[in-house]
């Protein structure tokens, strides 16, 4: 197994009396695709939000490339190269696709004067190339809000790639997309992993998708880690099947 790029160690998070995550530990190996599954309400999105710094955690530690990040805010973490997409797709609705892409460049080393920088032809070229990659090149000048939901998901994915992340956290990338488009998206996710070397950590409800893509899967239930292992093991794990069927 490659070195872990994200190490989550005994992370707990409660909202009032509701325990969303209880001592969850997991590791995302570099360069691989790792999956996170679990029934509704099992704490997957909470764990995602904890990792990207959306809210403080109650206990535990989260390390990114060996550095503790649980005390950093969202922007700082994103600038380290840990970028997430949202379950409810979020794009800049009133800007066109190319503008969405251009403003999504990595802000890792942005100095104050870069605020007033022009966009170099290289950036525009890369934006167009990535739009081509997700199949939105023909729509590059359309206002992003006018795209269909599936297209917005693709645009959000392209924006994430534009940010040159080291790790991409995808929250249900195929939710709400029609089955034809899903195959295309899986293919692109895998190519982003293999061609661009981006580590991926994916929350997914669609078992067909996650079993095909992930090399290693973690399963949460009731806020705790229930099982982990390669897809074949998880698929046949009785505890996982029970959790999904509601035997708990």
């Amino acid at each position, binding site marked *: 197994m490659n070195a872990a790029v994200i190490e989550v160690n005994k992370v707990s998070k409660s909202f009032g009396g509701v325990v969303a995550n209880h001592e969850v530990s997991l590791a995302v190996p570099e360069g691989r695709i790792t999956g996170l599954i679990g029934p509704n309400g099992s704490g997957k999105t909470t764990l995602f939000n904890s990792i*990207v710094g959306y809210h403080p955690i109650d206990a535990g530690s989260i390390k990114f490339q060996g550095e503790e990040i649980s005390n950093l805010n969202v922007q700082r973490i994103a600038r380290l190269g840990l970028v997430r997409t*949202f379950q409810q797709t979020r794009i800049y609705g009133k800007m066109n696709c190319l503008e969405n892409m251009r403003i999504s460049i990595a802000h890792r080393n942005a100095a104050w004067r870069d605020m007033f920088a022009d966009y170099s032809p290289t950036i525009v070229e890369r934006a167009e190339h990535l739009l081509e990659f997700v*199949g939105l090149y023909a*729509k590059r000048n359309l206002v992003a809000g006018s795209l269909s939901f599936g*297209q917005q998901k693709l645009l959000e994915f392209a924006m994430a790639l534009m940010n040159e992340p080291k790790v991409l956290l995808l929250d249900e990338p195929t939710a709400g997309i029609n089955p034809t488009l899903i195959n295309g998206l899986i293919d692109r996710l895998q190519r982003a992993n293999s061609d661009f070397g981006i580590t991926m950590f994916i929350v997914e409800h669609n078992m067909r998708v996650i079993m095909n893509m992930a090399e290693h899967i973690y399963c949460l239930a009731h806020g705790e880690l229930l099982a982990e292992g390669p897809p074949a093991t998880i698929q046949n794990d009785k505890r996982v099947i029970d959790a999904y069927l509601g035997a708990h």
Partner: protein
Amino acid sequence: MSRNSIILHCAILAAGIVAPLLFPGLVFQFAMLWIMILFALTWDVLGGQMGYNSLGNILFFGFGMYICAITQIGMFYNVAEYTAAFGAIKVDFTDQQYYVGLALGLVLAAVACALVAALLSWVLFGLRGPYFAIGTLGAALAAAELTGAWNYVGGGGGISMPVFPGEPGVRSLFFYSLCMAASIACYFFLRWLYGTRFGLALNAIRDDEDKAEAMGLHTNRYKMVAWSISAFFLGIVGGLFGNMTGFIEPMEVAYPTLTFGIFMVAMTLLGGKGTLWGPVIGATLFHVVKEVTWTYLLGWQYVALGLLIIVNVVYFQQGIMGWMQERWPQRFGLVVDSEGAVASRENAP
């Protein structure tokens, strides 16, 4: 710039030069028009481009006015003595003292306002949506009250400004030119600004600030600088306006939250927020309607303005430029999906 665009800009410039010479009686109104345009342009930086509706931008107008006045007086006299006399002492500024004081005053006003905006942004940008609007309104009202209670600057009694060393006709043309220059400089600065990464970042914050944060954008930095830019230009025009009226006091002249403070918003909404030309068109139309009703419908002027604002907000939210963009999208470089067929193209393997 396209050829038509150059012609348009030159025509406006020519009108700006010729109008005060043709109608010498209206020079003050024309100067006010340039100020109004600047009000709307600077309000739109946050309100239109960034999606933060500030009701307190007038704070920088008043603050700039006072900084400019204090500089003009303080360079050559004791400010406390000057203001304590409430204009009863006759202080003669030499020509050189006047112009040097004014120039330095305007520069300091602009810089000080930008700094105040940067400081305030630490506190106020923690608020979003309507809370930001109320917070900024509170800041403006507080500034007015604090100034009114501060005797060093004359408190509620105000300050009589140094007298312009020249003929009244020359004086009005002098300030007219400065207002016009400030407004035009502001326009071209914003025009350039919106073309850089800054413009896109502001729009990104407007469309989805959480997303912008999740993408690692330095949102606080952009918000702070955006407000400072607004404040910079408002400070200049505040200093100018104080000198044009000749007398400044906190409530009606320096921090007129209920008139200029609201006009900024109304003008931008009328013209179409989030566009470069919207504020210019909106301010012009609004100012003309305002002056006409003030002249011919005295007593009903606020009813007329109120009606204009209500119709604008209820039936015409996108404003004039917004409406034109919807009507003729291609002309504005917007592309619409004419056939839904394009949507399925990418589904093919």
